Structures are given as structure tokens and as C-alpha cells.
């Protein structure tokens, strides 16, 4: 709990004594510095609130759009066991989206409003989901690399300064690590399978490696929100730090898989105690963010269509609830007057 509550904020707003905002801000800064959690009723700077809404909405949207590339393979999964695993995973992603929209709602926004912004292209989702899943092995590569990158990014968020976000991340990270292990195991089965399966696995890793590294965002010197987010302890590590950590984790895992990573410049640097790796194609990254990736149009169109085609179902649920609440209330009123 942070030191200043919303009640105090209201009081401060009522008579606005000189320096009240400054005092609130100082208390907020002190709470963040002391690693206390900021809760929904606590005072917070507008920019902190806006930054969290942006990040949490983007995170929630990524879970929802991220269902599509994997759902693309549910109907073609090659064994019933794999089909069950994949269905459970896609279901979990919808659940993660729900947690995150709820967490974002504690900041005074609504799920409908956030979805409208996604559909209008005014809020983003992770660039990675604009790449297509072309073979079954892509399902494994997404589990291993994409979920792996997400976990590297998200584990520090479990200690994020905003309580509801941090708590959502604890639950999400547990399930994500499970998915990541399943993806790895899928690739391992392919890598150790027939030559055609091995080739399928290698091809998927070749296509997903660089987009996964892009998931950590632009390099530190070009990251617009980083410095402020780190001061506020929304973020705990820089984009480049996390990206480096991810590369160092993946290299031995790729070896254990018997697969190579598509980077001729990737090598161990004895001096740094870390891997050096090749340059990321930031032009491609920018294009994907701008909407010019391979699947941007398709992903957003499918999301909009699901929402639009579902409108009559949501309307029906509301109409039914209203009718039956009204009947219920009328009956109760009758009872009361009787």
C-alpha cells in the first residue's frame, strides 16, 4: 500500500491548499522508491496512469491477437495429444487477456473502450503476432521463442510498482512458463524425428528468431518510454538488457535441441561473459509497427470481424439480462408493497 489514499486526494482537491499536489507527488515518489505497491485507490501522477493503461492494454491486446497465429493450427494438429495442448494454450491466452483487461480497468478505463481502440488501430499489440504460422513447427517455435521472450520480459513485471498489474503477472507467468516448456518439447520431438520433421523445426526457428528478439522493443537509445518507466518501477530492466539475457538463455537451449540459430555473428564473448549477436533489422521492425508486417491487416480484420459478428450475441445477452432483472425487481417491489 502506498501512503496516500484517494480519500486524501479528494480532500486535497476540495480546498487545494498551496503545494498539495507537490505533497501528493512526493508521497507517491517516496512509495515507489521504497518499493511499495501502488493500488487503484492511491493517488498517482496522470502520466503514470496513462503509461500503465497504454502498456497493460497493449499487453492484453497481444494475448487476444496472439490467439490467432496458434489457433491457425488447432484444426490441423498432428496428434490428439498435441491438439489438446494447443487448445488449452489458446484458451489460457484468452484468460490472460481477461486478467489484463480487468487489471487495466482498475485504472478507470473499460474493456470495451480498450477493444475499440485496438480495433481502430489506436492501441498496439506485440509486433510478433504479425508473422504467419506456416508449418506445425511454428507452434513449437512460438512456444519456445515467443513465450520465452515474453517470460523474460514479464517476470520482472511481477515486481512492477502497480499492484494489480504485478499480481496479474504472477498468475500469467506461471502459465506462460508451462507453455514455453511445451513448445520446447514439441520442437525437440520434431528435431529428433524424421529428416522432414527436423527440417521443419529448423525452418521455423530460422523464421521466428529475429522477430522474437524484436519483442524486447527498440534499442535503449531509441526507446521513448523506457527511462520514465524505469523511474516509476513499471520496468525494471532496459530493453537491451532483457534482450541480451534472452539470447544467453536461448543459445544452450538451441544446442540441446540440435538446432541452429540463424545468426552468423552469434558467438560467446569471454570478456563480457555474454554472447555477441548480429544486428537486428530495425527497418523491418518499424514497418511491422506501422502496420506493414505480413499479417497486420489479416489479424486486425479477423479481430474486428469476430467483434462485429458477435455484436448481436452481446446485445441479446444485455437485453435478456435487462428483461430478467426488470422482472425480478418488479416482483420484489410487489412483495415490498404487499
Amino acid at each position, binding site marked *: 500500500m502506498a501512503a496516500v489514499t484517494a480519500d486524501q486526494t479528494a480532500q486535497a482537491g476540495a480546498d487545494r491548499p498551496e503545494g498539495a499536489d507537490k505533497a501528493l507527488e512526493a508521497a507517491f515518489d517516496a512509495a515507489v522508491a521504497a518499493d511499495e505497491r501502488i493500488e487503484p485507490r492511491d493517488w498517482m501522477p496522470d502520466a503514470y496512469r496513462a503509461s500503465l493503461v497504454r502498456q497493460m492494454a497493449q499487453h492484453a491486446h497481444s494475448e487476444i491477437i496472439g490467439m490467432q497465429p496458434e*489457433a491457425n493450427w488447432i484444426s490441423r494438429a498432428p*496428434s*490428439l495429444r498435441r491438439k*489438446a495442448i494447443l487448445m488449452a494454450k489458446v484458451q489460457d491466452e*484468452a484468460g490472460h487477456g481477461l486478467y489484463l483487461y480487468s487489471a487495466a480497468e482498475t485504472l478507470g478505463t473499460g474493456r470495451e473502450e480498450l477493444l475499440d481502440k485496438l480495433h481502430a488501430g489506436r492501441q498496439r499489440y506485440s509486433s510478433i503476432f504479425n508473422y504467419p504460422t506456416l508449418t506445425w513447427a511454428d507452434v513449437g517455435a512460438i512456444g519456445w521463442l515467443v513465450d520465452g521472450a515474453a517470460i523474460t520480459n514479464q517476470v520482472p513485471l511481477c515486481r512492477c510498482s502497480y499492484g494489480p498489474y504485478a499480481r496479474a503477472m504472477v498468475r500469467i507467468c506461471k502459465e506462460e512458463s508451462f507453455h514455453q516448456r511445451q513448445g520446447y518439447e514439441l520442437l525437440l520431438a520434431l528435431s529428433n524425428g524424421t529428416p522432414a520433421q527436423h527440417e521443419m523445426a529448423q525452418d521455423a526457428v530460422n523464421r521466428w528468431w529475429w522477430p522474437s528478439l524484436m519483442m524486447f522493443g527498440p534499442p535503449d537509445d531509441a526507446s521513448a518510454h523506457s527511462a520514465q518507466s524505469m523511474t516509476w518501477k513499471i520496468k525494471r530492466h532496459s530493453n537491451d538488457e532483457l534482450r541480451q539475457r534472452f539470447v544467453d538463455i536461448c543459445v544452450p537451449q538451441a544446442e540441446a535441441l540440435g538446432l541452429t540459430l540463424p545468426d552468423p555473428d552469434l558467438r560467446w564473448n569471454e570478456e563480457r561473459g555474454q554472447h555477441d549477436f548480429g544486428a537486428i533489422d530495425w527497418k523491418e521492425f518499424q514497418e511491422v509497427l506501422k502496420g506493414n508486417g505480413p499479417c497486420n491487416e489479416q489479424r486486425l480484420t479477423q479481430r474486428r470481424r469476430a*467483434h462485429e459478428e458477435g455484436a448481436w450475441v452481446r446485445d*441479446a445477452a444485455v437485453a*435478456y439480462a435487462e428483461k430478467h432483472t426488470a422482472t425480478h425487481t418488479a416482483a420484489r417491489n410487489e412483495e415490498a408493497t404487499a
Partner: protein
Amino acid sequence: MTAALALGDDALVLSHRLGEWAGHAPVLEEEVALANIALDLLGQARLLLSMAGDEDELAYLREERAFRNVQLVEQPNGDFAHTIARQLYFSAYQRPLYEQLSSGGSAFAGLAAKAVKEVAYHQDHAEHWTLRLGDGTDESHERMQRGVDALWRFTGELFEPVEGLEIDWRSLRSDWLESVSAVLDRATLTLPAGPQSGAWTAGAGRQGIHTEPFGRMIAEMQHLHRSHPGASW
């Protein structure tokens, strides 16, 4: 074992159809719910097919004429009301079926005892949506009635005796009709008046005679597995 295939194929095929909703549902809660039901059914399918042989061989290497599911479950999803009507008819059948099986001493008793809890949840879900759509807006009412009418002709087959199942089919049918009529009535919908099977004989699906969309469905389902003979996944 014909009975295990019949029940297993029902669950496998309906699970597949529900899986096609992933990423397309009208609300996020339904993404979760439909996937959940699909997973329950897939779990049932795996147990049942394993009683009859190797689950993957049976799912991926049989041709259309060898599948023993009822035609109801292979019907394409259509709109949400159509999917819910299919779910309503099937869960209202599966629940008393598994209830009977769970109390008997058959090979299916253990499995049915577990599955009946899942199916009760599926039926609850289908009934609540039938109510919301039937008694929601004019549009949803019309769509729900259309779904209920369109699928009615596939319901007769549900009560054709399956060899190897110790079931009182007559009481199964009356349980089914009772629960379906009651929910349609509460939902302000009309119980369809037409025949419960087409000019085709009822029981066709159980004999491996399917409807046209089914072949395309299993072509998609089996393609990858069949492209890599002998591979393990």
C-alpha cells in the same frame, strides 16, 4: 469395439468443430468457454478411442466412411446460435446417456462417471445461451429459432441403438425431449414440428454415411498427420 468408436467419434468431431471457434467468438468469455468444452470432449474422445485401438491411428488414418459419429456433431458451426443449438441437442443427449452408462456395470462406467460432470456443465452453458438468445432481441430470437429448426432433422439419429451399449433408448429419448422442450419453452422458442430425420434413414452416421461438409473437415484434420507417414509428434 463399435460402441467405443461411436461415442469417441461423437466427442472427437464435436470437439474439432468447437476448436474452429478459437479466435472468432463473440466475447472473450466465450473463447474460454467454447475451448473448455472442446477440451473436455477431446479428453473423452481420447479415452474412448484408446479403448478401441490407437487414438491417433483412429483419428487420423480412417477415411470418412469409417467414422461412426452421429451427423449432428459434424454439422458446420454456422452462426453462434447454430453452434448453441447443436450444443443444446447434443449435451441434452450425452448427459442422460452417460448417466445411464455410469450406473451400469459396463466397460464405460468409469469414464461415464467422470464425463457426466463435464457434460452437466456443457448442458448448463448451452441452456443459458439458448435462453439469452431466444429471449434476448428480435434478431437473436430469430437466429436461435433458425438454428433449432435447421438441426432438428439430425436429432432422430441420437436414439438409434448402438451395438454394445446397455441403454434404455426409450427413456433416453423421453429425457432428451423433456429437457429440450422445457428450455425451448422458457426461451420463448418453438419446438420444431418436422421429422427428426431426413428422407435418409436415421442412424446413417453410425453406419459411416455422413454429410458433405464432413469430408472436408477430416481432410483438414488429417492432412498433416497423413503427410508424414510413421512420424511421431
